[in-house]
């Protein structure tokens, strides 16, 4: 999406309170003219299953007393009500739906938009949706989106890279679902050899690595434009005899 169009999407969402998906739909239908998009939107029958009023109420239940945000305590309470562990990966999926900018913080717009995207307007319905939300991780494309989303989400505010500790925690969470055999080695390697923050490119490329390269590294190509950190990881594995590479 070009910068101009991205702005339009943002504007649309702010004004109508709709989700990004709907915004995109409307704008595309109107050939990226905001006015036309609004017409389109308001002329559509609303998805009746979701009642915006209820969503506001739910938000207000968890938000901080002195700001229009749900913070740590609110999140904790929410998890309680959903009967879910705050460390549960489903929270990540939910945050993804909400397009939350930062871990453990939700703005009004994010929260409401997220619930709309998930398609629930009450805590009970929300609780019921949890299994299907977890199931979304099985979908390859969604998993990739969630994975890449996690990087930005888990970052400290104002930082460009992800701190190593957080990264390792996230990886352990994410790859528990995927069962990557080299996960332990990877985390150990990072702590012993790298000990610095993780860049976005490295984060993204690691997923590709996990998906395409087999645990014996037999199809690993040295000239394969992998980030140098991954090259070093391969070296580390070979040096320590964890993998026997056939040349």
């Amino acid at each position, binding site marked *: 999406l070009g910068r101009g169009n991205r702005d339009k999407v943002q504007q649309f969402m702010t004004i109508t309170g709709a989700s990004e998906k709907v915004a995109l739909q409307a704008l595309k239908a109107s050939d990226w003219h905001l006015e036309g998009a609004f017409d389109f939107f308001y002329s559509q029958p609303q998805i009746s299953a979701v009642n915006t009023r209820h969503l506001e109420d739910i938000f207000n239940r968890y938000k901080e007393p002195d700001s229009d945000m749900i913070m740590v305590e609110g999140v904790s309470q929410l998890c309680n009500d959903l009967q879910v562990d705050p460390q549960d990966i489903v929270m990540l999926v939910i945050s993804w739906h909400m397009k939350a900018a930062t871990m453990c913080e939700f703005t009004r717009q994010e929260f409401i938009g997220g619930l709309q995207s998930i398609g629930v307007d009450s805590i009970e319905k929300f609780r019921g949706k949890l299994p299907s939300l977890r199931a979304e991780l099985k979908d390859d494309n969604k998993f990739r989106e969630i994975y890449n989303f996690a990087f930005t989400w888990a970052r400290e505010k104002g930082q460009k890279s992800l701190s190593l500790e957080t990264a390792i925690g996230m990886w352990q969470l994410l790859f528990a679902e995927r069962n990557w055999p080299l996960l332990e080695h990877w985390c150990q390697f990072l702590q012993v050899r790298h000990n610095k923050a993780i*860049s976005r490119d490295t984060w993204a490329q690691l997923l590709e690595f996990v998906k395409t390269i087999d645990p014996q590294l037999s199809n690993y190509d040295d000239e394969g*434009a992998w980030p140098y950190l991954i*090259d070093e990881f391969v070296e580390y594995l070979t040096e320590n005899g964890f993998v026997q590479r056939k040349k």
Partner: protein
Amino acid sequence: MNGQKKRGTRIEPFRHRIETDPKFFDKSWRKLHDAIREIYNHNASGLSFEELYRTAYNMVLLKFGPKLYEKLIENMKEHLEEMRASVEAAQGGLFLEELERKWNDHNKALTMIRDILMYMDRTYILTNKKTPVFDLGLELWRDTIVRSPMIQGRLLDILLELIHRERTGEVINRCLMRTTTKMLMTLGSSVYQDDFERPFLEVSASFYSVESQQFIDRYACGDYLKLAERRLNEESERVSQYMDVKTNEKITAVVVKEMLANHMQRLILMENSGLVNMLVEDRYEDLTRMYTLFNHVPDGLTTIRSVMMSHIKDTGKSLVTDPERLKDPVDFVQRLLNEKDKYDNIINMSFNNDKSFLNALNSSFEHFINLNNRSPEFISLFVDDKLRKGVKEANEDDLETVLDKVMMLFRYLQEKDLFEKYYKQHLAKRLLSGKAASDDSERSMLVKLKTECGYQFTSKLEGMFTDLKTSQDTTQGFYASTSSDLADAPTISVQILTTGSWPTQPCNTCNLPPEIVAVSEKFRAYYLGTHNGRRLTWQTNMGSADIKATFGNGSKHELNVSTYQMCVLMLFNASDVLTYREIEQSTAIPAADLKRCLQSLALVKGKQVLRKEPMSRDIADDDSFCVNDKFTSKLFKVKIGTVVAQKETDPEKLETRQRVEEDRKPQIEAAIVRIMKSRRVLDHNSIMTEVTKQLQPRFLPNPVVIKKRIESLIEREFLERDKADRKMYRYLA
């Protein structure tokens, strides 16, 4: 004229009433038959050519051509049979002579017969496409004599036998050989080839195969090649003397194959006498011979070239990795220059300036020079040494030549940027210590570097020269403007160095003596008066001073010392004895430099301006110093150097290298951005290749570093990976 219609007169051809004499043919043939016999019997003088010609003429005219032709063949065959018997009967050496004799006879006869039967040649034979008389005679000769079973084998054997004898040193009758082979040629080139040339080549091949095997076991390479060359010349000469010229090429090929091609590896690689030995000992003659001979052999020159290359690489490698050699950089480079000269000479004298050999030489040198990562430093030191000595030692042309040769070595360096750093350092030292002997030579060197590497390489270096010139002017201006105040002050000469042009120096603390401070501050004021907005920092670690000293024993000297040393010595105007700690406190000079400075003042034999208590080499905090009142020197002006290493110490080396590595990172990034900007989208391997190519004139970039720079650029959103193909990068505007 028309009008009258007369009966036209016709002139009829005159018809002879010729009686067809039934015996006409026989009578006529008898005439010819007898004549031919006389001809073959060397009795032709009594014959009338005119009559015989007319006889034949009439026979053909009266349509007896075919019969005449047949009779001719029959008749000639008879005569040839006689001749054959005679040749077969000849014994031993007389065989060839008899053959030649009969051949000559036949030729003469044939000529006459042809002349007599010329009319038939032109009419009957032509229209009926029969073989002309002369050719017929040759064919009959060929079939009856040369290819007769008794003669054919014997002829060949004798010819080959004679040739073999000649090869083993005997003298043979070449004339006879020549006429014999000429005869075969006349009979047709296929006769020559089938009946002589092909067997000759086969026999020669086995002869040389045997001979080469014997020689190679017995002779050293150089001698063997001499023999091979001699044989080749012999064979060529032999062909020119008594064979058809086309055989030359073929026999040469045979000799080359048997004597050279089949033994090529063994010869070239022969221990103690092969190519390597010849190269080492500069055996130009042998090398020329080897080059010329192996030029004929397929892959001959390629083999020589590759053996030469690996030899140069090996000797080069041992030269640059020998720890003894590395102790003296100037000698190191001199040896490299000598090697280069040596091979330039060899290629010039013996290898015909062959371009492919020059290229091989260049790539070998490039290979091993870069095996030692101190080569750039050493080459710079070599140039430094030469420019310090200047035109004194060698005249100007010689110096120019040497510098040109050094530039050749420079071209081989992969890390030219490292050389640049060192050159800058060395040049700075030269300029500031006044050791640049010849300004012209310095400039000339800069021009060479500029031609080689472009303007950027030398712009800062040129800046250094400019700074010095400007500083001279500034100092003059200073004294011109404030002369009155400074009558009693020490005279200073200031060199103002533009930061950025000169190698970066750490700025150290140093308390200058008050007299110096006074005048230097006046200078600073003067300078900043005309150059507002600039900042001057005294580089106390780089200056020098001339001090007049009067010693206790009465001797007076002028001492040339470094700035640090001057600060130390001036302290002794106020105190007689000082401890190290006191000196350190007063001067605020960093410990390492101060210790070196004191060592050179107190511990260098013949230049002990100070006395140290105790006399140990190391300096402890409580060691005391005082002026050495017993100081003497033959010279009035005494130079006290500082114990300083010309070659870099290990930590300094490391630092320089690190700085160079750091400098390379932005250069790599700039290259990546340049490439991506113009190509927009490019795959990983192509970027690596392009970047390496672009930076090649300066240094060889490390692929890992390039990768890291790419990732850094991705981080900073100059590039992104293509969404579909993770190996492609895209430029982000």
